[in-house]
């Protein structure tokens, strides 16, 4: 129980249905040199692991697997780290069960 589990969130997201609004990401990360603690925390807190570090040590987002929970907005909008909007009507995750 205490050892780290190797879980691929991609395997979980694979079950979900999405209608991706190509070229119109609904979340944007503000350009930065080094990520703030708040922005860094999104690397682990995002339940869909949309946030990743690039090779320059900056946080990037790929919102295609986003489940629209709003966690990153609560953490990162007040600090100015991210810009968060709902996807356009009809786009994004489409829950079959919810």
């Amino acid at each position, binding site marked *: 129980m205490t050892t780290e589990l190797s879980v691929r969130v991609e395997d979980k997201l694979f079950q979900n249905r999405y209608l991706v609004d190509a070229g119109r990401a609904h979340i944007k990360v503000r350009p930065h040199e080094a990520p703030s603690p708040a922005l860094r925390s999104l690397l682990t*807190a995002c339940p869909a692991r949309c946030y990743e570090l690039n090779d320059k040590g900056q946080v990037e987002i790929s919102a295609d697997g986003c*489940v629209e929970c709003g966690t990153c907005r*609560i953490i990162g909008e007040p600090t100015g780290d991210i810009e968060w909007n709902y996807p356009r009507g009809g786009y994004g995750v*489409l*829950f079959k069960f*919810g």
Partner: protein
Amino acid sequence: MIEERFDAIVIGAGMAGNAAALTLAQRGLKVLQLERGEYAGSKNVQGAILYSEMLEKLVPNFREDAPLERHLVEQRFWMMDDHSHVGLHYRSDDFNEERPNRYTIIRAQFDKWFSKKVQEAGALVVCETTVTELVQDAYGKVIGVRTDRPGGQVHADVVVLAEGVTGLLGARAHLRKIPQPDNVALAVKEMHFLPRETIEARFNLKGDEGTVIEAVGTISRGMTGMGFIYANKECVSLGIGCLVSDFQKSGESPYQLIERFKRHPSVAPLIEGSEVKEYSAHLIPEGGYKAIPQLFGDGWVVVGDAAQLNNAVHREGSNLAMTSGRIAAEAIFQVKSRRDPMTKENLSLYKTMLDQSFVMKDLKKYKDMPTLLHTQSQNFFLTYPQLVSKAMQNFVRVDGTSKVEKEKLTLKSFVSARSWTGLFGDAFRFARAWR
């Protein structure tokens, strides 16, 4: 998009929004309801438990055609450490009644049904439309909404904000603040499909009987949080949620947490061989009474999760949502009937009526509970569950140690973990917050 003017615009088609739109339409008001999902429910996530009493007030004969899963005859609370759980079960045949009290539901399906009732009552429901902004006049009065449809500005006398927990629009219009990370929990959930008979055998159920397991302990890794397992007809909803601030501090990831919960020896046999068909996540308001924002203003009211109306102790949210939506609609109807304008002063009737309902009374009762549990998470979610589990094992394991010696050992484990002052302090603080 829509040229005409409405008596009311309801933003969102969850429990609160549907309750509000239905009530307003039933009273004869001209209602527009806007939903960003493909259909009502496609963006909504809940455990989920439905409370009959609150739905009966809106749709009295809902049992005839609502997509219900199982009526609950049993509630299990588990206190878990890594290898065990100490359980409190309540099961009663009294819950096998003609009009059962609580049901498990699947929100996407239920909300679609609820939305149909709203449309039948005469409201105009427009899906696949995201409201991007509230439209305010020069004095700050809310007079309509702007949407992502071309030319999508619509006006109404009053806007009901049922936009959900993150409350984007209200915060952007400075009607309230964005929720704090220590006042919201992030829950992740999976839908595990199994044959009906397998679920009934594993959970000891007959026919449409259902059960709920709620679990605290080492599963949340010292964070303030809770796991849940709900039996539906042909699937099991399994999830775990913890405070967003605790996720931030601990660096734990939600998908690892749910994976660990699933592999716990008490949980794994319940879902063995299941097919997972969906992974979802959602925020839950946890701040209680003290986190409730301003509920009304010139041209607007806020209901449901957007108003942070959730009873974290009893895990009740959708009934508070339905009730606040209905009461807000009734208040709006009363103001409208008197031909009064939808001013802040007149809409304060909503708050007055809500204060008299169970919604505010219950939240007020537990007003100190969130602070207690959120600041003492290590004690309540890690130390005590481990101590209780050890005490139980000590109690039942027969190993030749005398019972007097066993009791001494148990007592010693509690005192050395928390000290006498700590134990009395925790008991006192808990009792006071509960009262």
